[in-house]
């Protein structure tokens, strides 16, 4: 199988280049990550992140033939050759396919991604009705892989001020949580031309989310919550 992979080594001072590879998948190789691992036994200078190899850790997000995705969830079968691999668009490249996620996680932290609940905690757990629990579906599954934010034109142009689809989906995950008491403060924080309203509903985020989530829908819910509050 033919691949063309973005290479960058910060130590040489040379600009990034594309390197061609030709590698035969072995019998058990089903996903792109399997092939990358095989490739690395031949060229151990090739750098990429990976851990769980099953779509849980979110570390092997990359641009695969022009679309962001997880190498471990991308089937080799049906991939157009040469398979062109580049780092996540718009993120600073540390080496090869490894990008600097500092800013991405700073946005995530800015939305206070933890439950702000009544004190003191109850004897046992904080209970929810099945309906209330249901509202977290499609939100709690986010693995923070950054496929969405790195495919969002608004995030490319304003990565410092726009929270981006991943952070906004996470923000809504806590707004939607019946046990969280900080909804008003959370909405106050988001009600900002940059943080929330840079989103132009392009839906690139939803197009590429490897977990099948819909950040654009979460953003719509935040907008509606703000609208309801102001009326």
């Amino acid at each position: 199988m033919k691949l063309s992979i973005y290479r960058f080594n910060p130590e040489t001072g040379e600009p990034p280049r594309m390197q061609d590879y030709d590698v035969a998948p072995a019998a058990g190789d089903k996903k792109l990550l399997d092939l990358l691992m095989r490739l690395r036994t031949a060229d151990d200078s090739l750098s990429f992140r990976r851990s769980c190899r099953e779509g849980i850790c979110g570390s092997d997000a990359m641009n695969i033939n022009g679309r962001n995705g997880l190498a471990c969830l991308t089937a080799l079968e049906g991939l157009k050759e040469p398979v062109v691999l580049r780092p996540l668009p718009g993120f600073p490249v540390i080496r090869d396919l490894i990008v600097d996620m500092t800013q991405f996680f700073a946005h995530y932290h800015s939305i206070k991604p933890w439950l702000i609940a009544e004190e003191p905690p109850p004897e046992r757990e904080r209970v929810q009705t099945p309906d209330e629990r249901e509202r977290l579906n499609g939100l709690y599954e986010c693995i923070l892989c950054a496929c969405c934010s790195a495919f969002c034109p608004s995030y490319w142009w304003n990565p410092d001020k726009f929270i981006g689809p991943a952070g906004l989906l996470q923000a809504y995950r806590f707004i939607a949580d019946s046990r969280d008491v900080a909804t008003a403060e959370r909405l106050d924080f988001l009600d900002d031309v940059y943080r929330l309203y840079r989103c132009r509903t392009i839906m690139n985020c939803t197009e590429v989310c490897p977990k099948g989530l819909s950040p654009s829908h979460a953003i719509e819910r935040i907008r509606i919550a703000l609208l309801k509050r102001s009326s």
Partner: protein
Amino acid sequence: MARPVRPLPVFLNLLRIRFPVGAIASIAHRVAGVLLFLALPPLALGLDASLRSEAGFEAMRDLLSSPWRALVGLILVWAAAHHLLAGIRHLLMDVGIGGGLAQARASARAVLVVAVLLALVFAAGWLT
């Protein structure tokens, strides 16, 4: 680990990114908006000139019957049609209609196709 002194490279070559249909409809909306914005002053001046005097009217008519009119007309009608349709699509999505991925893809495709068709129909009508 010491950070390199040079700024890190960023991959953001838009020609190497495979855009979904929604992104194409969106960028076309912006292009159309800018075209409409640029077209407004000349159109207003032209209307003003044509209403001011008979000579002005004749001059405008001559201008509009130049061979360029079809191309300019085609582009402007496309821009108006696309901007209006994409704008309506946006407004519907803002009130919660058609926000699912499948519907959004279908409506984006429809906006792109219908705007081009409208422009062609209009140009054909104008030329004959």
